[in-house]
C-alpha cells in the first residue's frame, strides 16, 4: 500500500458560482495525526465531504485507502470511521439502540471499548438521541466511529461542542489510538492548542488551497516573526519567497517569515539597516498571521 493514506491532486469544487476549493493538493502519511486548520468557510468541511464521497469534485483526483471515494468498496468502508460536524442520528432511537444498529454493519466491533467509552463519558445508554444535548450527541457520534477499529479516522471539527474536560478526554483517546493501534487520524479544527498537543502534521487551508503543510515542530521552527526597528519605507520587492506577511507599525516593520535560518537573518540585516528582533510564534499566532 502506498505510504499516503489520503492523497488529493488538484481538487476543485464550487457550489453554484462560488468556488470553494481551487486546485488543492494534499498528502496524509500513514500513521500520522494530521490537523487541517482553516478559518470558518475556508472549505474544511467541503474537503472532508469530498474525502468521504458525500460530494463529488468538479476536477482533480482523490484517493483514500487506495480507493476512490466515489466508489468505495465495502472493504474500504470497514476500514475508516467518520464523524461529521453535526450529529446525524435517528432521534427516536436510544443510545443503546443506535450502537446496536451501527454495530450490525461492521464485521468486527469492540463492545468492550464502546461500553467503556460510554461509561467514562457518562452517557445514559437508555436516553433517546433526540433528548441529548449537542455535546452529548457529538460524543455518541465519536464513540460510534471508533467501535470497528478503523485504520483511518476522519473527524470534522470533532471538539467544537465539547466542554474542556470532554475535549481533553477525546484527545487522550486519539493519542491512545495512535500509540496502540496505528490509526491515522485526520481532523479539521480551528482550535490550535489541540493541534499543538496531538498533531504531528498540520496543513492550513486558505483561499481554496493548502497555504502550507508540514510537520508541526518544523512549522514552529520555520516560521518566525521579525521586528525590524527603524526600518525605512517598505521596499516594493520585499522578498516574497520567504515573507508570509508583513505589517507596518510606527516603530518599523513587522515581518512574518518562513524557512527562517542564519542566511535569511543576514540577508535581512543587510537589507534593512535597522535592528532585527526575532520572535518565536506559537501555532495560534502563526495561524492569525497567515489569515490576516
Amino acid at each position, binding site marked *: 500500500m502506498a505510504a499516503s493514506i489520503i492523497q488529493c491532486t488538484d481538487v476543485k469544487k464550487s457550489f453554484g458560482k462560488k468556488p470553494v476549493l481551487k486546485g488543492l493538493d494534499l498528502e496524509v502519511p500513514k500513521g500520522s*495525526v494530521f490537523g487541517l486548520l482553516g478559518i470558518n468557510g475556508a472549505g474544511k468541511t467541503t474537503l472532508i465531504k469530498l474525502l468521504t464521497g458525500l460530494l463529488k469534485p468538479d476536477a482533480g483526483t482523490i484517493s483514500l485507502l487506495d480507493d476512490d471515494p466515489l466508489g468505495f468498496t465495502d472493504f474500504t468502508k470497514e476500514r475508516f470511521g467518520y464523524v461529521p460536524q453535526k450529529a446525524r442520528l435517528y432521534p427516536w432511537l436510544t443510545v443503546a439502540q443506535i450502537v446496536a444498529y451501527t454495530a450490525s454493519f461492521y464485521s468486527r466491533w469492540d463492545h468492550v471499548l464502546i461500553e467503556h467509552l460510554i461509561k467514562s463519558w457518562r452517557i445514559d445508554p437508555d436516553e433517546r438521541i433526540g433528548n441529548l444535548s449537542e455535546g452529548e450527541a457529538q460524543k455518541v457520534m465519536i464513540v460510534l466511529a471508533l467501535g470497528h477499529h478503523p485504520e483511518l479516522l476522519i473527524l470534522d471539527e470533532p471538539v467544537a461542542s465539547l466542554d474542556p474536560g470532554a475535549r*481533553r478526554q477525546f*484527545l*487522550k483517546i486519539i*493519542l*491512545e489510538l*495512535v*500509540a496502540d493501534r496505528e490509526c491515522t487520524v485526520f481532523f479539521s479544527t480551528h482550535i*490550535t*492548542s489541540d493541534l*499543538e*498537543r*496531538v*498533531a*504531528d502534521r498540520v496543513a492550513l487551508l486558505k483561499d481554496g488551497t493548502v497555504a502550507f503543510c508540514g510537520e*508541526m*515542530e518544523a512549522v*514552529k*521552527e520555520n516560521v518566525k516573526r521579525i521586528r525590524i526597528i527603524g526600518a525605512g519605507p517598505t521596499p516594493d520587492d520585499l522578498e516574497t519567497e520567504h515573507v508570509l506577511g508583513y505589517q507596518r507599525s510606527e516603530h518599523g516593520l513587522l515581518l512574518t517569515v518562513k524557512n527562517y535560518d542564519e542566511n535569511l*537573518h543576514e540577508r535581512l*540585516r543587510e537589507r534593512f539597516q535597522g*535592528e*532585527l*528582533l*526575532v*520572535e*518565536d*510564534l*506559537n*501555532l*495560534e*499566532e502563526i495561524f492569525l498571521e497567515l489569515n490576516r
Partner: protein
Amino acid sequence: MTLEPRYYFSILTSSGVPIYRQIIDQVKIHIATGRLKEGDFLPSVRQVGKELEINPMTVSKAYSLLEKEGVLEAVRGQGMRVLKSPTAGKSVTSGEAQMTPLLQEVIARAHQVSLDKKHLINLIHDLWKE
C-alpha cells in the same frame, strides 16, 4: 528505576518553542544537575505521551535526537538509557548546571539582536549588582 514522566518534564504545548526541543533541553538540564545519572532509564515514549497528553511521536523524535547527540543510548527491550555525561570528569555545580542553558539562550538571543560579545559582557557588568 524510572520515575513518573511528570517528575521529569514540564511541557508547554502552546509555546513558541517546539515540544521536542523542550524535552531535549529538560533532559540535558536533568543530566547536568544530576537528577538523571549515568545508567538511568528514561520513561518510555508511550508513558511520556500518555501522562503529558502529547503525541508520542514527538517524544520519540526528542529521544532520537538525543541519541544522535550521544546523550542517550537505546537498550533493546528496556528503553533509553543515559550515557556518560558529556561533561564527565568536570564536576559541575548545581548553580553552573542551571545557568548554562540559560546563558546559552542569552547568547543565542544576542546573535539574533546583533549584539556582540563585548557589548554583552559590558551589559552584564552594568546590570550586576554586588
